[in-house]
């Protein structure tokens, strides 16, 4: 448990939505809209969420998932309406910092819809190697891993 380590990982997820880039952007740009899909569920929040959607602004959720409290703390670094959002965030489990990540939401018009590309580059700190996270290997998950690593 006292072992110090870092692990890096990058993943990319692409989605196409039948909605204009402005509507997809709007789903990220207000607390009410984002609460509809982002999580955590409102009943798990232990404080009012902070949401300051502008460059330099913070977004912060603290949620309780017994037995631990998880904190998501983000800072927005680049916002281009309808096109791009770049932010960095930290995740804490109680007082322990679990990870720091840079996330990029890139929106591209695709016909009348939008192609969304989400890229997350993260560094994960020690103490995360917990047996309860272990999963069995399957070929299907390997496909996902391949996509991630190629991304």
């Amino acid at each position, binding site marked *: 448990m006292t*072992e110090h*380590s*870092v*692990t890096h*990982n990058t*993943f990319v*997820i692409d*989605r196409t*939505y*039948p*909605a*204009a880039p*402005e*509507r*997809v952007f*709007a*789903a990220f740009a207000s607390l009410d*809209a984002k609460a*509809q*899909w*982002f*999580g955590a569920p409102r009943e798990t929040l232990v404080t009012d969420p902070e949401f300051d959607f502008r460059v330099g602004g913070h977004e912060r959720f603290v949620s309780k998932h017994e037995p631990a409290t998880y904190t998501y703390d983000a800072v927005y670094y680049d916002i281009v309406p309808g096109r791009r959002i770049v932010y960095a965030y930290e995740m804490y489990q109680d007082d322990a910092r679990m990870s720091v990540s840079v996330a990029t939401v890139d929106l591209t018009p695709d016909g*009348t819809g939008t192609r*969304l590309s*989400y890229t*997350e580059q*993260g560094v*994960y700190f020690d103490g*995360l*190697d917990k047996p309860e*996270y*272990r*999963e*069995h*290997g*399957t*070929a299907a*998950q*390997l*496909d*996902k*891993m*391949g996509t*991630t*690593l*190629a991304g």
Partner: protein
Amino acid sequence: MLNQTADLDRVFQALADPGRRVMVERLSLGPASVSELARPMAMSLAAVVQHVQVLEACGLVRSQKVGRTRTCTINSGVLGSAERWITERRTTWEHRLDRLGDYLAETADGPDLTGGP
């Protein structure tokens, strides 16, 4: 078991090669000889042996030589550790972006809807 970051790095490096991923997928179905692994691959037996050595070095695969046949098996414990790191973060966002799609569909008649076909 996989406890050190260096090992995890080697697992990711080993899996970064599409040919080695094909081999790991095959081995996730059950043990196979090196020549069985080589059969679907467009590469020499010597190249396959080198790939198997990379997979062995990071602990993903174990091999044992009996007579003239070397049989490879997957080490599912190591595979599980590597998967966990990636799938956990990734699946969270896959679920989120699925919910975003649902939300966009549900609000499609909203006032912010820009022109469509």
